[in-house]
């Protein structure tokens, strides 16, 4: 039981105080609420992106499909990619990072709680801005990679929405990246050295640094694209001496680290799930950590493998072919360590475990096709065909999305105090696995048979029809499996809530978040734990019996040890207050963006709103705050 007392501070309007109720969601700066906001929003966008996928697959199920014309198809497949990457996988990863990084390191919140809220609102408004394009002249239609010079000369408004929308969401992610990086470095519990930090948190740190250093590159590219379209510049205009290849370099310099941004969170989740459901520590923890760092680092050095067919020449192609082959190594290290974790373990095949194993296996398939792309002459056959589509869906969907769903089943009890139905979860898993492989497996074949990407139809004479039909069936099975997941959520929440004690640590897990109640109180921990080892919570619950070497329960009470950091308990826990300024400041973004499209007055208004928001933020409380 905790009492929350709020100090009123000077400000223009009365500072919000509520931490419950509808309006509290607009003023929250609590990482847990923000995590839930990210997660819910991501899932809504997932469904939208999934519907776009079904439209694509329905159009392509038969040759000369008439469901979508070419122009509509271009918008749908472009928005499908943008949605899944920027509005689903990244925000859902952000949801998990936001909710669980502070808990897993024994902190009460992130380093900059208001900046955290700002990141969420800017992301949401950026996503809505992107989708408003459908009603305002046409959605982006240039592919998620939006190559110049097509993007420059496209007469529709789509690519402009693309540039502005991704600049907005990029700002959200950059702010979040700096926030979470500082959190991991600077807010670990006493005794939690870097090598006692859970792998999920390590992957979080790597991902934030990847974001911080790769997003500026695409931001510049997007501004250059925007200026070429709106202000007559010539960055990518060949008629004035510009070079469209510059776009490709800038885009993929970001784009390749981006794919590791997409998959490393899921790798982190898998690294948490497997040990719990094998009742064994992660095999080779240090190798898993170092390989994650290596992937992040080398990931900056392979970008031009997306440009093998762009005419860079044999020297560049060879260099990037080699670096790409090298990056397979740390990934392989992780795979072997995960296998080592399972080997000899006391395995429990819960839904979370199934999804984690699914992640590993599906990613290996995608990784193998990736290795075939590394061979440049082989890539010449594969590039721009459905073989590539198969590859990246195996690694992103098979890798990242399966892992994220594993995280859902694993952590749902902690977040909501309820267990998702394991029966429905398993059904979801198997249906999704079958549907996924039916949808994307045949695409390897289709690609090698010559089916080209990004094209709204294909003629009957090419003999591509059968596998397209199979793929479409698979897509609908995936949709059915997601429906099962949603049913699971509804059914779980319709039931009576279980006793809090039953769901605090339902999996008999290893890391600190399971020490808190389910859901945790607003301050996370009554007392900040002092950490003595990796898997600290596990070691508080179990010790090795000296004679038998077997694990036995530790002495009762040790699980809530009393050697805690005295700063945490008893005399008042200081938490930052809710605030509406991050939301106000975020409103400036879409106003500025619409202003670029329609009216300079709107740009001015947006800038003013943002400025007011930032000043209000900076000046609350009355003493200049060191919180951003």
């Amino acid at each position, binding site marked *: 039981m905790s009492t*929350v007392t709020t100090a009123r501070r000077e400000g223009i309007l009365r500072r919000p105080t509520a931490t419950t109720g509808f309006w509290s969601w607009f003023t929250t700066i609590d990482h847990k609420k923000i995590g839930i906001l990210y997660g819910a929003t991501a899932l809504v966008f997932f469904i939208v992106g999934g519907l776009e996928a079904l439209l694509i697959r329905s159009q392509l199920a038969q040759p000369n499909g008439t469901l979508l014309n070419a122009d509509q198809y271009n918008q749908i497949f472009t928005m499908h990619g943008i949605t899944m990457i920027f509005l689903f996988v990244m925000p859902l990863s952000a949801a998990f990072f936001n909710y669980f990084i502070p808990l897993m390191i024994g902190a009460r919140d992130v380093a900059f709680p208001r900046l955290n809220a700002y990141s969420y609102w800017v992301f949401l408004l950026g996503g809505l801005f992107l989708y408003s394009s459908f009603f305002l002249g046409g959605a982006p239609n240039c592919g998620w990679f939006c190559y110049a010079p097509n993007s420059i000369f496209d007469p529709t408004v789509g690519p402009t929405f693309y540039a502005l929308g991704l600049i907005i969401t990029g700002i959200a992610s950059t702010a979040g990246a700096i926030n979470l990086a500082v959190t991991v470095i600077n807010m670990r519990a006493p005794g939690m050295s870097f090598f006692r930090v859970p792998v999920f948190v390590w992957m979080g740190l790597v991902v934030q640094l990847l974001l911080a250093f790769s997003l500026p590159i695409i931001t510049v590219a997007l501004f250059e694209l925007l200026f070429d379209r709106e202000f007559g510049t*010539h960055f990518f205009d060949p008629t004035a001496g510009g070079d469209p290849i510059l776009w490709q370099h800038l885009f993929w310099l970001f784009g390749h680290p981006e794919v590791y941004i997409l998959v490393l969170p899921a790798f982190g989740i898998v690294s948490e799930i497997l040990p719990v459901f094998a009742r064994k520590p992660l095999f080779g923890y240090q190798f898993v950590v170092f390989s994650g760092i290596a992937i992040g680092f080398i990931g900056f050095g392979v970008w031009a493998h997306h440009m093998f067919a762009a005419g860079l020449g044999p020297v560049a192609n060879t260099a990037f072919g080699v670096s790409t082959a090298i990056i397979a190594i740390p990934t392989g290290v992780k795979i072997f360590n995960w296998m080592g974790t399972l080997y000899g373990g006391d395995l429990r095949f819960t839904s979370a475990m199934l999804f984690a194993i699914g992640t590993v296996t599906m990613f290996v398939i995608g990784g193998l096709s990736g290795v075939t792309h590394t061979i440049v002459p082989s890539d010449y056959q594969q590039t721009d065909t459905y073989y590539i589509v198969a590859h990246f869906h195996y690694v992103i969907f098979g890798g990242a999305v399966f892992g994220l769903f594993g995280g859902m089943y694993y952590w749902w009890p902690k977040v909501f105090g309820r267990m998702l139905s394991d029966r429905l979860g398993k059904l979801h898993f198997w249906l999704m696995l079958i549907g996924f492989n039916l949808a994307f497996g045949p695409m390897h074949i289709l690609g090698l048979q010559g089916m080209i990407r990004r094209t709204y139809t294909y003629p009957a004479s090419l003999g591509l029809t059968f596998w397209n039909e199979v793929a479409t069936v698979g897509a609908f099975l995936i949709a059915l499996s997601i429906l099962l997941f949603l049913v699971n959520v509804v059914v779980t929440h319709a039931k009576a809530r279980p006793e809090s004690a039953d769901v605090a640590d339902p999996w008999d897990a290893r890391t600190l978040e399971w020490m808190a109640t389910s859901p945790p109180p607003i301050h996370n921990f009554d007392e900040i734990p002092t950490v003595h080892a990796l898997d600290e919570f596990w070691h508080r619950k179990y010790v090795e019996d000296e004679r038998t070497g077997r694990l036995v329960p530790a002495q009762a009470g040790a699980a809530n040890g009393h050697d805690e950091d005295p700063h945490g308990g008893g005399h008042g826990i200081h938490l930052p207050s809710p605030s509406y300024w991050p939301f106000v400041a975020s409103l400036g973004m879409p106003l500025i963006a619409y202003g670029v499209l329609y009216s300079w007055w709107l740009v001015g208004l947006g800038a003013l709103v943002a400025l007011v928001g930032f000043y209000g933020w900076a000046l609350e409380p009355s003493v200049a705050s060191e919180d951003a």
Partner: protein
Amino acid sequence: MADVAIERGGGHGADHPETTTGLSHTKLAMWVFLGSECMLFGALITTYVLYRGRSVAPPYPADIFDIPYTSVSSFVLLASSLTMVLALSAAQQRDEGRMRLWLLTTALLGMTFVGGQVYEFTAFYHEGLKLSTNLFGTTFYVLTGFHGVHVTVGVLMLLSLFGMSFADRLPEDPSFPIEMVGLYWHFVDIVWIVIFTVVYLIPTPSPGGPGGP
């Protein structure tokens, strides 16, 4: 479960001791941010360097640049870095008067720089260099424009600190916010050091001349 009273309150202190590393959150964040800004300006500078000498139409840099003029501008910005660090020094010595003096001077020097750029851009515009004229216009205005916007944001922050010191809204030890703004300000200065060299001082051959296309 302990009965805990949670107090809601303001932010951490400047060198809040309770960070894992002992380093300030804000200072750490600022350096990560500046690292990421290197990637931003790097991309813009790369674009400029890539397109150097590739304009297919005039005016070209040699026709337009007024090196003495821009040199004065560069000295102004460099001087502002010095006054910035003097402001910080004064703040660390709790010399409020000097602190305000140097803060204002830095802001004024910054405004002079921006003003100088505005004048320069206007002059170039009247000599026929627009954003859309050629690659030189494209890359020049966007690179220096991005930099100028960064300087302007810095000036706003400096004037805010100046104003806050009179409204008694700075902490008792004001050196921390000044140090943070100072880091940003110096970064903006070092970007200009690179831009001044790469864009203005390193000669760009005009087409038809030696080394041109």
